[in-house]
Structures are given as C-alpha cells and as structure tokens.
C-alpha cells in the first residue's frame, strides 16, 4: 500500500497521540477528584478529633 502523504498521515498520527494523552488526563483528573474528596473527609475528621479533644464528646456528624 502506498504511503499516505504527510499532511494526510499527520492528522491521524496527531489524533492517536491526542487520544492517548486525553485518556491519561481523564484518568488523572478522576484520581485527583478522589484525592480531593479524601482531603475533605480528612478535614472533617480533624474537626471531629478537635471536638473530642476539647471535651465535647462525639456529636452526630
């Protein structure tokens, strides 16, 4: 099969690499959202620990 001209092949090559990068970015974004949730929950637990420490006992959270 004859080789595609550069301007034609370039679009496909760019598309393949962009798809790869996009997929990795989506994955990292999802993981970042999960880490953000962990951080938020950690903050809530820190507040709870401070409440307990100050003698307030465990209140309903």
């Amino acid at each position, binding site marked *: *099969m004859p*080789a*595609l*001209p*550069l301007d*034609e*092949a*370039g679009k*496909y*090559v760019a*598309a*393949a*690499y962009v*798809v*790869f990068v996009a*997929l*990795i970015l989506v*994955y990292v974004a999802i*993981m970042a959202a*999960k*880490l953000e*949730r*962990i951080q938020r*929950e*950690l903050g809530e*637990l820190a507040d*709870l*620990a401070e409440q*307990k420490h100050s003698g307030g006992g*465990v209140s309903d*959270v």
Partner: protein
Amino acid sequence: MKVPSLRAQAAATVAILAAGFTLVFFYAPLDTEGFIQKIFYLHVPLAICSLAGFVVAGIHAIRHLRSGDPVHDARSYVSIHLSVIFGIAVLATGSIWARAQWGKWWVWDEPTLVSFLIVFLLYVTYYPLRYAIEDRERQARYASVFAITAGAFVPLNFLAVRLADPLIHPRTFSSAGGLPGSMLLTFVVCLAGIALLWLSLVRFELTAKSASAKLARLRRALEGEAHPPPLAGSRIAPGLPSRTASASWMNDPTTPRS
C-alpha cells in the same frame, strides 16, 4: 531493593516518555508506510503493557489466594484496571492507524485485532463479576480466580495469534532482520516509558486506595462503634479489610512484601 518514591518515579516516567516521543518525531526514520508508522511507537508498547499487566494481575491473584493477604487482591484489581484503560488506548490508536492504512476503522477477519478485543472484553466483565458479590472476602476470592484464569488465557491467546497466518496486521518483530537499530532504540525507549507510566499509575491508584482505607479506619476510631463505618471511597476498594489484623497492607501497599 529500595523502591523509589512515587514522585521520583513519576518524574522519570515523564522524562522517558518525553525522550521517547522526541525520538519518534525527530530521530526514527520513516519506513515504507510513511509518517503513519509513527503510531506504532505508541500502539505496540501500549498493547504489550496492557497484556503484560493482565498477566501481572494474575500473578498477584495467585499470591492473594495463597496468602489471603488483601494487598495482593488490591494490586491485582489495580493492575487489571490500568490494563483495561491501556486496552482502550490500544483499540483507539489501532483503529486510527487502520483507518489511515486500510481505510477501515476495524477488520473482523484479522486474528490479531479480534483476539485483543476478546481479551479486552473478557476483562471488562471483571467489574460486574466483582461488584455482583457483596461479601468482601468472597468478592476478593472470586475476583482472584477470575484474574488467574483470564491471566493464563492471555499468553495462550498471544501464542495462538502468532501461530496463525497473519492477514493484514503487521508483525512487528517477525520480519527477517527485525527493526533497524534507530527504530529499535526508539521503540525500546517508548516501551520503557509506557511501562513506567503503567507502574506509576498503579502505584498512584494504590496509594489513593491506601489513603482512603486509612481514612475509613480513622473515622471508625473517632466515631466509635455506635456509628457504622461509612466505607468512604471503598466501593471500589478491593479487599478493604474489615478485620483489623489484615489492615496492615494499608500502611504501605506500594512496598513489596515478601
């Protein structure tokens, strides 16, 4: 052996991938396919890492069944997860190449393509299988059996495809003399970069799962038994142990245990 920190490993991944892609576009010569062949440096390493990842998941699953240690179940799960994601990239980049080279997005009578699709779809069924079982112990055990069976299928499938008559899909390392030196070097650097990316993402996800599990323990400890554990983020945390004794993997799931 000292395991490098995740940050150092991620930096090495970015550096090697950048070097690999630079070699692809500025060093590797064009072959008879022309510029479209540049997809090969991405597509083939992704396929190799995806299939190898499925086998690694099977090995972790064997270790899980032998030891009962949930850390191996978690590693098996994450290996399959990343390999499925890489599998999506393989199918997408392969289809783009096929469209450019053959004029079709997909060819059903080519054993290489169809066999990879079968392996990919097989592993996609891992998720419904896993989450159809509520009991954590049973879930992990069944998932391990699945990972071992499917993991054994991968090399057999690969061998069968290599033995079959190739129709139109190119065979990368089968032609006499193999790849020219410059192409081989580029390919090896790209393969190293993609393999490191797979490893880094596996460690990243395991670290996130470990943090999530520690958080659940902390919440249990702070709120007491009066409040049931919320299982924060644990719907997809395989093998998140309910027993305190088996929770030791949470300390550092990325460190190999003997």
